[in-house]
Structure formats: structure tokens, C-alpha cells
């Protein structure tokens, strides 16, 4: 059996690419090492319910936006209707820093007026920034990389406001430390602040199952518990993949969603002409990873006085976004109250999710006993910072689980558990191996919608000819 394309990884990007290619009659095989599909946006069972591993909220929501908006375009390519996603909008989110709080919602006007109220005189600057972001987006990102911090600080003259605006955007999609590429900033700014956020009432599972069934209905084949140990390259062309079990599968092309450096482990040729000859920096893995603790609530958070959907906070005026010196940076984080979205009917179980930056080197260096002890210690410290932000919720919450960078590495294969991949992105998906392409986190689009946009885009550009 020879496949037109073998896709490595059944995360959202690989599945979306598979759906698109199989729909147009390509013979496609998706190989997933884990026993469950979903990759960085998978789920697991705990306490009798489905718990999402990555999803807080879906960005790019924009239900009444133009047909040219990312979500609308993506859904047309996949022949999926917005209703199929069963998304319900956030109530309202907030950014909390020492002495200042900004509220934002799916109506961009709220953030705009909040900025003016909390930082008098900055309203016009904020609108100027929003216009610049819009402008860049409509020019299709043809400009080169630029420091977002430099650009934003040159427009917004109140340093605390700069930090506050960066906080959600970095937490939700920044692969590099301290700063981000302005194009990436613009993309996330639009998807979070302008288009807004929503949540599927039943989490990520229905979307994964929808993609899987679409893929299989079009004749696509999916194998789980089947990793790829090597890509066979001959004359600059991928000829076949060798599975962990030693099976050789011939193919006309390979689409890898594993990440660039992760792909290099099974196919060193993808790095062949990069670095010195390309004039760019040697690719380095990302180092931004997180812990997340998940608690089940026995009462609606709203009834306990907490009506926000998401709270992005920092206890320092300067928002530090980098691999922490300590195992966990407990001074900033994201709190997601999964019940606080405008659902048609209540969720089965309201969850409280709390994310903080963590040091992947530390967590991956521990032996089994140390790991268990350290997890307990840092969970306590992390919970402490959590429950000072949401007083009154501690007595209503039951701890379900906590994952660390080591957990992410174990289940997704991403080096350092870097959920946003490597800082340097390969926008066109092209590698030195002529018929091997990269999609997913290292292609550059992030988030639930972005990952699918990545898979569909690379499929369209390179594999549907």
C-alpha cells in the first residue's frame, strides 16, 4: 500500500489537513503515537468527565464577522458549519495587575473604553495600536519580523498598560521569551481582543470526533499507538516512513505536525540547509511551558462572586514572560472558569483551570519519587496564589489533576513541553526535503482555529496540486 501523504500526528493541524486532503480523494494515512487523538488539544478522563488538556477557550470566535475572517474561511475549507462547533461566547474576561484591572469581552469596544477609563489619555493610543494591528493583518504579513515590545511601547506611553496588554497575548501563544514578533502579536491581538473567545460546552472532544469521522468517511486511515521512528529520504525526497514497530510505509509526501526539531529526530535531513547557509539562526527548541491544575467546582463560580470567564493576572507590574528560575512562576497566571460562558444549558461539571509558567528543564530532570513530591509541593504553592485571586472558591473545589511540562512532553512529544513550539516559525511549511512539509505549532498559527488553519493551509499550498 502506498499513500499519497502520510501525516505525522493526529492533533488539530494533522486532522484538519487529513480531512481536506481525503475529501479531495487523496490516499491519506495519519499516524499518531499516543493512543488518543488531539495532540496539544486532546482530552482525558478524570473524575468521570472529559477534561481538556489544552483548551481554555477558542479564540477567533466572531460569529457575525465577515466571511474573510479566519474562523469563517477555515470552516468553509473543512465543510464544517459554525453550529457544528457548539461554541458559546465568554461573558467577560479581565487582566489584573497591581493597582489596575482591565475588563474585555467579545465586544472590542469594552476594552477600548476600559483603557481610557483606567489609563486616562491612553484611549487614543490604544486605538492607534488597534489600527496598526488591523493594517498589518490586511497586508497579509509581508513585512519582516519586528519587536512587538518596541512597537507597542512607542505607541502606548503608559508602561503598566503595555504589560497588561501583553499578558493575555503571551500566555495564549508566544513561543519566545520576553518579547514576540509583532506579526505574531497582531495575529493574537485580533484573535483574542477583536474576534473574541468562546467555549464548546462539552470541551474539545466533539470537535476531535467530528474531524476524525469526516476524515474516515472520506476514506482516510488513522492509526493511533503508532509512532514514526524514521523518515526514509533518498535523493532529497521522502520515500517512506518507518513506524516504531518497524513497518515500512511508502508515501508520496510527508506532512509532519510533530514540530521542526521533533521531526529532525526522525528525519535529520529537514535541518540540512538551514542555519549557516540560510543565513538564519540555528533553530532552537522553545522553552516556554506551563503547569496547569484543574479543579472541579460543586457550585457555580458565579454564585460565589466570580463571574469572569478568564482572568490573566500578574502580581508584578512588569509582566515576566520567560522560563522561570524556580520550578513554577507563581506570580502570574491564567484562571479559566469553564462554567462562565453563555451556554444554552449548564455544563455537566464546572471546572476551575489555573495555568502558570514552569521550568521544563527542572520538571523533566526529576526522578519518579522527586517528581511526585515536587508536584505536591508546587501544587500547594500554585493553589495558594490561585485562591487568593478567587476567594471563596477553595471550599467549593475538588482537585482533579495537575500537569507539568514533563506531562506535555510525555504525551505530545514536544521538546521541553513547549506548547507554542520553537521561536522561529516556518510559515511556508517547506523543508529541505522536497516533499516533507511542516504544519502545526512550528508553522506559526496557534490556538484551536490557528492549528487547523495551519493544516489546511499547508495542505492547500503543497499537497493538493
Amino acid at each position, binding site marked *: 500500500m502506498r499513500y499519497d501523504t502520510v501525516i505525522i500526528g493526529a492533533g488539530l493541524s494533522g486532522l484538519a489537513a487529513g480531512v481536506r486532503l481525503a475529501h479531495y480523494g487523496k490516499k491519506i494515512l495519519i499516524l499518531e503515537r499516543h493512543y488518543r487523538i488531539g495532540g496539544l488539544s486532546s482530552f482525558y478522563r478524570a473524575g468521570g468527565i472529559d477534561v481538556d488538556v489544552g483548551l481554555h477557550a477558542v479564540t477567533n470566535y466572531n460569529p457575525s464577522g465577515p466571511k474573510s475572517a479566519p474562523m469563517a474561511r477555515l470552516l468553509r475549507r473543512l465543510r464544517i458549519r459554525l453550529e457544528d462547533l457548539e461554541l458559546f461566547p465568554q461573558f467577560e474576561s479581565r487582566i489584573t495587575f497591581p493597582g489596575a484591572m482591565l475588563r474585555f469581552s467579545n465586544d472590542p469596544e469594552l476594552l477600548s473604553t476600559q483603557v481610557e477609563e483606567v489609563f486616562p489619555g491612553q484611549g487614543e493610543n490604544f486605538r492607534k495600536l488597534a489600527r496598526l494591528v488591523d493594517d498589518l493583518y490586511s497586508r497579509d504579513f509581508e513585512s519582516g519580523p519586528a519587536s512587538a515590545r518596541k512597537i507597542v511601547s512607542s505607541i502606548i506611553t503608559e508602561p503598566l498598560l503595555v504589560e497588561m496588554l501583553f499578558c493575555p497575548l503571551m500566555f495564549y501563544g508566544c513561543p519566545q521569551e520576553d518579547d514576540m514578533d509583532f506579526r505574531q502579536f497582531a495575529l493574537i491581538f485580533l484573535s483574542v481582543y477583536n474576534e473574541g473567545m468562546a467555549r464548546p460546552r462539552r470541551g474539545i472532544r466533539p470537535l476531535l470526533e467530528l474531524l476524525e469521522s469526516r476524515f474516515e468517511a472520506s476514506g482516510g486511515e488513522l492509526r493511533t499507538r503508532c509512532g514514526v521512528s524514521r523518515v526514509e529520504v533518498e535523493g532529497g525526497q521522502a520515500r517512506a516512513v518507518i513506524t516504531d514497530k518497524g513497518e515500512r510505509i511508502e508515501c508520496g509526501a510527508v506532512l509532519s505536525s510533530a514540530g521542526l526539531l521533533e521531526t529532525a529526530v526522525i528525519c535529520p535531513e529537514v535541518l540540512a540547509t538551514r542555519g549557516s547557509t540560510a543565513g538564519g539562526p540555528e533553530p532552537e527548541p522553545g522553552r516556554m511551558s506551563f503547569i496547569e491544575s484543574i479543579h472541579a467546582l460543586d457550585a457555580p463560580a458565579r454564585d460565589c462572586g466570580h463571574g469572569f470567564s478568564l482572568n490573566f493576572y500578574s502580581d508584578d507590574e512588569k509582566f515576566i514572560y520567560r522560563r522561570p528560575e524556580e520550578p513554577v512562576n507563581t506570580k502570574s497566571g491564567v484562571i479559566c472558569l469553564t462554567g462562565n460562558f453563555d451556554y444554552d444549558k449548564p455544563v455537566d461539571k464546572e471546572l476551575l483551570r489555573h495555568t502558570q509558567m514552569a521550568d521544563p528543564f527542572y520538571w523533566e530532570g526529576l526522578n519518579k519519587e522527586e517528581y511526585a513530591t515536587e508536584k505536591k509541593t508546587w501544587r500547594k504553592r500554585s493553589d495558594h496564589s490561585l485562591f487568593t485571586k478567587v476567594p471563596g472558591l477553595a471550599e467549593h473545589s475538588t482537585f482533579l489533576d495537575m500537569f507539568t511540562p514533563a506531562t506535555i512532553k510525555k504525551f505530545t512529544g514536544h521538546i521541553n513541553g513547549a506548547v507554542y513550539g520553537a521561536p522561529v516559525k516556518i510559515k511556508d511549511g517547506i523543508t529541505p526535503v522536497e516533499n516533507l512539509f511542516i504544519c502545526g505549532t512550528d508553522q506559526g498559527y496557534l490556538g484551536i482555529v490557528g492549528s487547523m488553519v495551519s493544516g489546511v493551509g499547508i495542505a492547500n499550498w503543497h499537497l*493538493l496540486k
Partner: protein
Amino acid sequence: MTGEGIRQAILDIIKEIVPDEDLSSVDPEKPFRDQIDLDSMDFLDIVMELRKRYSVEVPEQDYPHLLSMSSTVDYLLPKMESL
């Protein structure tokens, strides 16, 4: 396939790609673009659906023929009448 059959086939394809569009009043002489919100990827999808469903190839230089319903039907008729 008759001209009418091809017209229906095109409508079915467009309906699949943009299910929310009202296609009942599409004027066959006016460009699709002025009546239906279709972008360049949507057009490519129409071409690929034609290949998938009817094994009809539309080379890139012929895309201008797909301007309106009547020009599309005229263009496809010789390719599809034997189907």
C-alpha cells in the same frame, strides 16, 4: 448531462461550500462574485469539486470562463454532456 443538469450540479457545489448563501435568485448572466460572497479559495474549491465529482479538469487559464452561471455552463457543456 444537459445545461440544466450542469447548472444544478454547480449550485449543489456552491451550496456545499457556502451553505448560508441564498442561491435561489442567482442571475445566470451576472458574475457570481457580485451575487455570492466567494473568495479565491472558494473558487478553487468549486474547481476541485468538479474534478472530484465529475472528473472534469478546469485548467487555470480557463478560470475566467467560470465568471457567471451561464458562462460556466457554456464552458462545461462540451466537457460534461457525455456524462
